């Protein structure tokens, strides 16, 4: 075990997979010599050669398209999309091609690609460096969507994603790259060094796709969260003192429905939180699903706490970000209902 932050854990996952499997290639904007604007691919080109790790033209659609072609040949490309906000030029290739290739060819071809992309706010990046577009992908059948919340999961899930034979979107909470973040932006930064999930095996291991993790168990309320918001949930639970169960979804889709049903069946209350805009966000699906499966157990309305239905405003990101105060407020309201 080594202490790693999330950037290092992701780098290690790529390194391990480049080492194990000659069919793994890594490319994207600035990922080659430079090592990526968030340094996730640092040193990989130097170690594995420029045929394995290289810069790509600024053309997200082209990157995904060539990754699909490579997948059809038999490779396992891993593409970095520099910011999740810039994934839209690739939307057609992801939705019309990657997601449907296995289906439309009845299994003759598949698209075993992994798209890594930093998402979420908290770095004063304004509306085009802060988005959380996961809800656009969870609606698309044929895609898998993953969001880790800590270094250990990040590495294990990324390895699983690369080994997976279906197209996987792997969104990385950029706010968690260097440390856990409970949502109090005005407190000193934390690092992963002191966090148990900052202990990461140096070699190969996997965290299976499709399994949620219960990050905090509790009996009074279920909080469904992923990525950065897992830490906000933990903070809010601690601050309110409510006996909340925090479920870290890890894989958004396909979803670990059983874990959710079991928890809400037990607690009777459910709060769903995400940073993405509220309307039509992934929380809507979670809410609908919990309501369908747990209706007769519900003691209070399911609530969603999410990003406001506005772009992420640069100067006001801490009024935008659904922080522990807002989550705590919802927890109290739910417990009072």
């Amino acid at each position, binding site marked *: 075990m080594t202490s790693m932050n999330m950037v290092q854990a992701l780098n290690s996952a790529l390194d391990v997979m480049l080492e194990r499997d000659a069919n793994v290639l890594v490319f994207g904007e600035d990922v080659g010599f430079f090592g990526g604007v968030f340094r996730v691919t640092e040193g990989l080109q130097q170690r594995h050669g420029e045929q394995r790790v290289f810069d790509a033209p600024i053309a997200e659609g082209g990157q995904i398209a*060539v990754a699909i072609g490579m997948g059809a040949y038999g490779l396992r490309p891993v593409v970095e999309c520099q910011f999740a906000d810039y994934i839209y030029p690739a939307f*057609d290739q992801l939705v019309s091609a990657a997601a449907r290739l296995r289906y439309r060819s009845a299994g003759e071809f598949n698209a075993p690609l992994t798209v890594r992309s930093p998402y979420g706010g908290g770095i004063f990046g304004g509306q085009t460096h802060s988005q959380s577009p996961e809800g656009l992908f969870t609606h698309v059948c044929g895609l898998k969507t993953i969001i880790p919340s800590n270094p250990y999961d990040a590495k294990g899930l990324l390895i699983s994603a690369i080994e997976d034979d279906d197209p996987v979107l792997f969104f990385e909470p950029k706010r968690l790259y260097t440390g856990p973040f409970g949502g109090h932006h005005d407190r000193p930064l934390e690092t992963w060094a002191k966090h148990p999930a900052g202990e990461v095996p140096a070699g190969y291991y996997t965290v299976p796709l499709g399994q949620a993790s219960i990050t905090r168990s509790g009996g009074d309320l279920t909080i469904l969260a992923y990525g950065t918001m897992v830490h906000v949930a933990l903070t809010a639970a601690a601050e309110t003192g409510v006996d909340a169960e925090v479920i870290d979804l890890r894989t958004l889709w*396909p979803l670990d*429905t059983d874990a959710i049903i079991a928890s809400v069946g037990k607690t009777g209350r459910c709060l769903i939180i995400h940073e993405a805009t509220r309307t039509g966000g992934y929380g809507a699906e979670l809410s609908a699903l919990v309501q369908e499966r747990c209706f007769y157990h519900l003691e209070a309305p399911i609530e969603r706490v999410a990003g406001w239905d506005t772009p992420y405003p640069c100067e006001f990101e801490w009024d935008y970000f659904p922080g522990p105060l807002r989550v705590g407020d919802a927890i109290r309201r739910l417990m009072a209902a």
Partner: protein
Amino acid sequence: MKRDSSLHLHIPHARFRPGDTADFSYLSLPRAGQSPCPPSDAQASATRDLADGLVRVIGDDGGAVGPWDPKLDPGLALKGLRAMLLTRIFDDRMFKAQRQGKTPFYLKCTGEEAVAVAQALALRPDDMCFPTYRQQGLLIARDWPILDMMCQIYLNPKDRLKGRQLPVLYSARQAGFFSLAGNLGTQFPQAVGWAMASAYKRDTKIAAAWIGEGASAEGDFHQAMVFAAVYRAPVILNLVNNQWAISSSQGVAGGEEASFASRAVGFGFPGIRVDGNDFLAVYAVTRWAAERARNNHGPTLIELFTYRAGAHSTSDDPGRYRPGDEYQHWPLGDPIERFKAHLIRIGAWDEARHQALVAEIETQVDAANREAQGLGVHSNGPHHDPATMFEDIYKEMPQHLKEQRAEMQRLRVLAGRAPS
């Protein structure tokens, strides 16, 4: 500086519409044999005139002339003729089947048979093709069973794609034929990725992709050009300029002021425009590009200049937007007729053998068609089990799809459409 008057918006026109007489005299067509043939490792800039010109081999008298004459082996030539004829007869038969309601959709490539057939023969069997819906000739030239194609068209239980895809959107991995997309253009940069993979693996296989001139307006075209240029991918990028995209003329795609082939030069790789109805020219240019790619000199853009002789598809009525008889006036003729005339002229073929071949192919198509129809047709089945629709979304079926499948089965029972 000149005085400025007010601006006006230029709207491109089709050259003729219903009621007009088609006049193709605006085309400046060089005679066969006039284009030089540079070595296949030439600089892009050396191909400029090829990009603006038109490589032609078969002359008006049926003879093969000039440096692009591929000196085709007679066996291969007859294979090509046969594949073109089979493609055309197959198309006609399937078109009729659609009119009879036996398939919901069909799409012919009439007039463009030389494109896919000559190109297939110029490639190696394991080179990978990323076609559009109008290159059924690739499958036929690669001896893919037409029965298999028909079963897909009829959406019957032998349809390997399990009734999921619009007929004609084939997938045939074994034939090096990539799963066809309904989404225009998507395959073009994918082919570059496949070629990059082959190069990365130090393989010898190259990729070839096709796109319509209409679809070349999509961003995907540019992505293919950029990635092919940047990584010098071993890929042949074919742009089939059949003058029409449904009702829109090639001018609407940007072909008014320059050839499509000439776009390659600005990316630093060769562009060649070829008479797409000239089997020998298509074959020769494709060979040239394949040799170039296989020797690590990178991509080539080939513009295949041809004419969509028929409707866009069975859903289309071209009488609403073009005269109807313009194909008769198309100055580059019909690819099958021209190739036949050439073979007769060089003494490798004659009218009697031709009629016999046509008859043989008709019999073959009819036999396959009977067999395919016997296995089931769209209008009255049988089909695959609808439950198969839940397969192949993911490699392993997740829980929610199993539940949905069960729900659908329950409803089918409820509706009396499946036994309980």
